[in-house]
């Protein structure tokens, strides 16, 4: 028998696996098998641990005040930064602006996302469903900066919209660098998130339920309010909280479409780190924002469980 023939009878890949199995079998101890699941999760825990380390660093920095004569952080710890973050009118204005903006964005986004998700789920046309899905995913995958850039081209003072308006003799209008522009940009940014969270909830509503209501004499408005809306409520609340926290904490849209005069909390934090170099105050603001964000997500978990994001064990008997 030539070596070549023996390779064919017993392929190289088998030899390879035999070798690997032999090594594993030599290293393996039966008591490892209980630790196996934890060993598999460990890398993920360590990577996520980087964020925990980051939070610890933020807490540490937030307790140190900036010495304006030396521009170094103090050695001793105090809560002075938190007091400034909560008391200074600038931060109060910014916090109020972000909270109000996030609420408006959430309401408008849900109002637009619901019909979108409803049509996407209920349509009988596979082509339409696919077209709506692609329309949703394309901006989601393109990223915030390029999208905001598109809005600059459309809404700028020499932008497409103003050019078109001046062609018919109106304008120009100042469409950019104001609060409505930021909110509009945020709604566009949030729409895919909201639709993708609503769609499974609407899928779960049996269509017969609606036709039953309508056959019993309810018009579509009543069947919508009394049947569809209550059944879709978990999806609406989940989507609402995700949209609220994401828009509350957004940086890019207020920075690009707000033109510096419509900052949200994230922009204020960035400025503390990179403009005024007051790391301590920036860290305190960041931690307050983390607290608001976690509180909102904590509510989602409390209401719907961690399975909301699909990380639940299969319910196998």
């Amino acid at each position, binding site marked *: 028998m030539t070596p070549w023939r023996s390779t064919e009878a017993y392929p190289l890949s088998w030899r390879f696996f035999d070798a690997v199995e032999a090594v594993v079998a030599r290293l393996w101890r039966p008591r490892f098998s209980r630790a196996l699941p934890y060993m598999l999760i460990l890398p993920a825990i360590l990577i996520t641990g980087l964020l925990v380390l980051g939070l610890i660093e933020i807490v540490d920095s937030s307790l140190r005040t900036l010495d304006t004569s030396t521009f170094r952080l103090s050695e001793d710890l105090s809560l002075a930064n938190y007091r400034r973050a909560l008391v200074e009118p600038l931060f109060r204005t910014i916090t109020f602006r972000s909270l109000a903006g996030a609420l408006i964005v959430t309401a408008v986004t849900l109002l637009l996302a619901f019909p979108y998700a409803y049509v996407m789920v209920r349509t009988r046309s596979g082509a339409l469903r696919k077209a709506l899905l692609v329309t949703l995913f394309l901006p989601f*995958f393109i990223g915030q900066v*390029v999208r905001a850039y598109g809005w600059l081209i459309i809404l700028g003072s020499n932008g497409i919209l103003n050019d078109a308006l001046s062609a018919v003799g109106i304008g120009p209008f100042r469409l950019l660098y104001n609060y409505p522009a930021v909110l509009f940009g945020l709604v566009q940014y949030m729409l895919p998130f909201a639709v993708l969270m609503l769609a499974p909830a609407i899928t779960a509503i049996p269509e017969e339920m609606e036709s039953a209501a309508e056959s019993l004499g309810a018009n579509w408005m009543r069947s919508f309010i009394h049947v569809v809306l209550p059944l879709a409520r978990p999806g609406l609340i989940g989507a609402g909280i995700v949209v609220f926290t994401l828009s509350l904490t957004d940086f890019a849209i207020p920075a690009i479409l707000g033109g510096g005069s419509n900052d949200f909390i994230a922009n204020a934090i960035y400025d503390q780190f990179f403009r005024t170099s007051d790391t301590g105050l920036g860290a305190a603001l960041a931690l307050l924002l983390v607290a608001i964000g976690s509180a909102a997500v904590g509510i989602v978990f409390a209401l719907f469980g961690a399975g909301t994001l699909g990380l639940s064990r299969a319910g196998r008997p």
Partner: protein
Amino acid sequence: MTSSRGKALLLWSAVLFSVATLSAPTLVVLGASFTAGNMIAFPPQGLSLRWYAAVAGASDLRQAFLRSLYVAAICTAVAVPVGTLAGIALARYRIRFGRTIQIYLLLPFTIPLIGSGIGLMLVFGKAGLIGQLWPVGIACCAINLPFMIWAVTGSVNALDPDLEYAAASCGAPPVQTFFLVTLPAVMPGVITGSLLMFILALNEFLVSLLLVDARIVTLPVQIYNSIRSIITPDLAAISVVFIAAAGLAIALLDRLVGLDIFLKSK
């Protein structure tokens, strides 16, 4: 009859408005990239590929793009093994404190991005890693890892455990079972997850902005820095890279797992 027509009218006007809002920036960037003029104007001043030529010749944009690719590659290369193993473990084994671990692993979604970014900036700063590119990839992996785990758990839940028992009873040792039975079965989830990780890292802006210095800006940061000064069509041409990447990712997702997967109720 009139009422159902009213319903259709209301639904469709909302949907059309959303479709227009979602697509407008993409279409406009695409259109602007082909303009022949020096300015972005409406109506466009003729068609040309001159801005693509300009981008191909601009080494700063090209290098920023290569850096973004590098970051996305590092992120995906780390996330695939880490997320796949964690996903299999979470869906397959009964784990003590499993619920706590799940909630812990969702931290990247619960901590606002600016918080994660600032935290990583402080951690990497202390470790002297600011100014290098690979930590940006690790950071992108850390903030998006739940997507990878979610995609894998989804397909592990669809995998029949009997397949693994069958392999074992046919005499396949554990490592072989893992690579030849378990891994191929969860492959759709691994592919979905890695596509998401790659594209999200390619686009990642805020964490990049916090972690890079002027010498190693990634493409989204480069575009952000440029649109704050003057808007020229060469940025539109380079932005088309992102549009093309997004289109490719969607086409791949649709072919490999089907976009409808996102509509399923749990």
